[in-house]
Every structure is written in C-alpha cells, then in structure tokens.
C-alpha cells in the first residue's frame, strides 16, 4: 500500500468554526488553510483560546467544522477513525486496566484478525519503545504523570495511524519532564516518520520537534498568521540544538509573533466569550418545573 509521498497528504481548506453564544454567532476560527506533506511534522502555536485545539479536533473528526473541509489522503474526514491517532493533554487511561491493557484495547480494535499474542506483542513493543518495558502491568495510579503520558504516546503509535494528532501532549507536565518526553516522542516518531500535527504553546517544543511551525493569530476569527520553516536536519539532537544560536533565533521569531498577537487590540467582535459555554437552557427547562412542585 505504499505510494510515493504526497505533498498534499493532509489538506485543511477554508475551515470556519462558528459557535453560538448569547451575543450571537462567533467565528472562533475563520478561513484556516494548511497543507501537510506526507511525513511532515507540523506544529501549531498560538495563545490560549485562539482555537488551535478546535482545528485539531476537527481534523481528528471529533468536532464538526461550520465551513471548509479536511482531506486526508484524498478522502474527506467526516468522523473519528483509527487512521488518526490522537494524543490528548490528559492521557485518558482507563484506571482499572494495566498500561498493557490500555494500549491493547486500541490494538484489538485496529487488528481484529491478529492473534491475541500478536496483539499483546504490538502493545508491549510500543510500551517498551517509550521506556515502560518494566511497567507493562502497572495501573495508571502506580505511574507518575510523565509515565502515564508515555502510555498515551504508546497507545497512539501502536495503532499505526496514518496521521498523528497531538493536542498539547505535554502541557500538564513539569518543564523538565516535558523535555524528557519530547526526546521520547522524537525517537518514536523517527522510527517511521508518520505525518504529525501538534498543537502546543511551548515554543521550545515546537522548534525542537517540527519541520514547520504554524503561528495562529489570536481569536476570534483566528487563522494562520505566519509559518516558520525549521531548517534543522534530522535526526535531531536536543543537546546540540539547545546549544546552537540558530535554535534561539527560531525561538525568538516565535516569541516575537506571540507577543505581537498578545498586544494586538482585540477585533470588534471580541466581546463574545472565548470558549462557548454548554447551553444549559434545555436542561434547566426540565429541572425547574419539577423543583417548583
């Protein structure tokens, strides 16, 4: 099933996301366009609430766009599927299952015709790759937060997805553990260079991991602001990069963009809330009459 690498492996075209708010509809994301070549690692950075995660959720098929389309390998994305592996900020592990069982749960879905032993081996293989070879049978409560996120990485990679989606994967970790896991992710990714789209607000993380960094403007009506190409050769070595002036030039470019966006006066429509609140009116309508009687 291998074909020559496509330069438009993932194509996000004219994406709009409009949320209904008490003050009328607000376009959180408007006219977001981005194309990823096969095997490319692209990060999206932007301020909190700018809509980065919204874009990722739409690509994952976990949310619907208002306008526009997401096309993965020639097919439009309409729902979530195992061809896209997602790593969330919180690893979302099942507390009563071991690390191995948590990973195997997904493997069983994706490889139903493999034997049980083979599926177990696949799960164990990826857990070993993330450095958890001796913790296969531990439950989430026995693992540190960094180790739990390693399980999250193993689970995503074990599904052998065509596209890897990472939503602030290390956002909940302390800054040192984050650096440690960036190394783990990079090694894992380097094995087969899956096309990857990552959302982060950590500038170092974006520069270290990515081929290109997409800077998103502050919402509402967030879109692609600038794109920075990261020229460092692969395989990359954190020690050498962190010590090189070129790394800090890239870092500086991104920080400058973020500061400009942070100081930019909000557009007129900014009165609307950043995140849509769940609409409770229906629920209240049910509760209120009952509580009155």
């Amino acid at each position, binding site marked *: *099933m291998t074909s020559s690498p496509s330069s438009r492996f993932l194509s996000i075209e004219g994406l709009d996301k409009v949320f209904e708010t008490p003050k009328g509809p607000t376009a959180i994301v408007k006219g977001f366009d981005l194309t990823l070549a096969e095997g490319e690692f692209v990060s999206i950075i932007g301020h909190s609430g700018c809509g980065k995660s919204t874009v990722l959720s739409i690509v994952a098929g976990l949310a619907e766009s208002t306008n526009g389309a997401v096309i993965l390998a020639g097919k439009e994305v309409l729902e979530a599927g195992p061809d896209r592996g997602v790593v969330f900020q919180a690893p979302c592990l099942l507390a009563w299952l071991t690390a191995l069982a948590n990973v195997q749960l997904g493997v069983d879905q994706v490889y139903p015709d493999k034997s049980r032993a083979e599926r177990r*081996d696949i799960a164990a293989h990826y857990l070993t790759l993330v*450095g958890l070879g001796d913790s296969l049978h531990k439950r989430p409560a026995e693992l540190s937060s960094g180790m739990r996120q390693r399980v999250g990485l193993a689970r995503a990679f074990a599904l052998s997805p065509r596209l890897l989606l990472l939503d602030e994967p290390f956002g909940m970790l302390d*800054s040192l553990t984050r650096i440690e896991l960036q190394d783990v992710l990079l090694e*894992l990714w380097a094995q087969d260079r899956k096309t990857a789209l990552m959302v982060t607000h950590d500038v170092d993380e974006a520069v270290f991991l990515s081929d290109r960094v997409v800077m998103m403007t502050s919402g509402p009506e967030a879109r692609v602001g600038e794109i920075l190409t990261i020229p460092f050769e692969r395989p990359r070595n954190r020690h050498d990069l962190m010590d090189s002036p070129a790394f800090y030039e890239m870092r500086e470019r991104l*920080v400058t963009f973020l500061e400009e966006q942070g100081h930019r006066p909000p557009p007129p429509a900014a009165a609307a809330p950043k995140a849509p609140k769940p609409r409770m009116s229906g629920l209240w309508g049910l509760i209120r009459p009952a509580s009155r009687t």
Partner: protein
Amino acid sequence: MTTPSLRPILSLRGVSKSYGTTHVLDDISLDIEAGEVVVIVGFSGAGKSTLISLMCGLDQPDSGEVTFKGSKVTEPGPERMLVFQNYSLLPWLSALDNVALAVDQVFPGWSKEKRQTHIDRFINMVGLDHARDRKPAQLSGGMRQRVALARALATDPEVLLMDEPLSALDALTRATLQDGLERIARTSGKTIVLVTNDVDEAILLADRIIPLSAGPRATLGPEFPITIPRPRERRALNQMPEFRHVRTAVVDYLLSTKRGPRPAAAPAIAPLAVPSLEPAP
C-alpha cells in the same frame, strides 16, 4: 565556584529524609551565603518541597542537620519565611488583611501609622494597590501569589524560601511574576532560596543554580554559578552564549540523573515485528 564562607546564613549538613519506606533525600549538604539567590532545580516529585520544608523547619531531617546562623533549625520562624505554590492565604481576609495579619505577628509593638505605611509599601511593591480590599476568591492566581509574596516580604525575613511559587500559573502570568521576582531579588538584598522545575526561571533569578537529582534518594548535583549581569531581561538572555550553555548543561545533568524509564535503544527491540501492515478497515 564560590568559596565556602566560614559563616553561611543557612546551612545543611548531611541531611537525609525518608517518608515510610521512600528514601526521599540523601546526604544533602549546602551552604547559603547572606544576600545570595540560590535556585534549586529538579523534576516534580524529586523532593524539592521536602528540602525546602526542612530549611523552613516545618519538618525535621532523619539524619544530618539544618542550621540558621549556627543554631539548629527546629521549627518555622519569622527569619525564614516560606512562600508556597498554593499561596495559602486566609480566604475570609482581604489582600490587605492577609498581609496585616503577618505583620502584626512579627512586629506587634508597632504604631498604627508605622504598621499601615509598612503594609502599604509591600502591597504597592507587588502592584496590588487597586485590589487591596479584595478577598482571595476575587483575585486571579497570579494576584494571589503576589499577596503571598507581599506577606512574606512584609515580615522582613532574613531568608525568603520559595517553593515553586509560580508553577501553578499560566505562562504569561508566570513570565510577568518572574520579572517581578527578578526585581525583588536584585533590589531587596534578601537571601533567597527558590525551588523550581523551570530552568529558564532559574537562570533569570539565580546567583547559583543547584540541580536536585531525580528521586528517590535525591541529592544535590554540581552547582552552576550564573554570572550574567543584573538586571536580567528574558528576551536579551536568548542572545547570550552563557544562557544557552547553562541551560543545556543543567538540563543534561538533570536528565542524566533520571534512572527510570529511558527509551530503549533501537537494536534491543527492533527485531520484534513493527506492524507495517495497514490497519483493517
């Protein structure tokens, strides 16, 4: 390298501490000079909070000892104030009253005017004049930590101990408060011991960075003196070779102390079939 002084203000000698069967800190020795800013950097869970609790006197070491100006530390005291990560403000008191409470404890004999001027000074120093009458619940996380900082500074401690004071804050607020701490470190002349997991924060603030190895049995690693002149400006640091070198060296050291999970080298497991097949539809 700083030459060890004959009279450090705060000193730890062969300090070890266990909780239950977990050996948290192992044989820690450290001398802190009056007026210096020492930043201890380590992974979360390494034992940084335990270490600073021992310095504060909130807890006692199993072996070794902590001394302040030559006397053994056995309990917390106003000469060593601790700023917590979770602020620890009294929720029913305003920002002003939280600071006042501490001032009244430490300086009970002061006149009304002197007390008020003093409190105002520190509320202003942390930029909270406009919010002085608000209760903690009406303040953002960053503002709450400013109150906690004003409270600690207003008691005029000889050593200011800070336990990840900015870790619970978002990146933008953290940067603003780091700049505020940089100013306080530079102008107050206080001895400051700060623990953090953020190497950039450490370089911005420290005279010396001392890494705490990953636990269990955490111990202090080689110290990194920071000679970047003050005032330090975060954007300017980016361009300084010293910043890059120290940053890399501290991170390298700390990662090397992690005995736990490391991504295994490829050859050991590569023979195992990496599923290259297409997932079933």
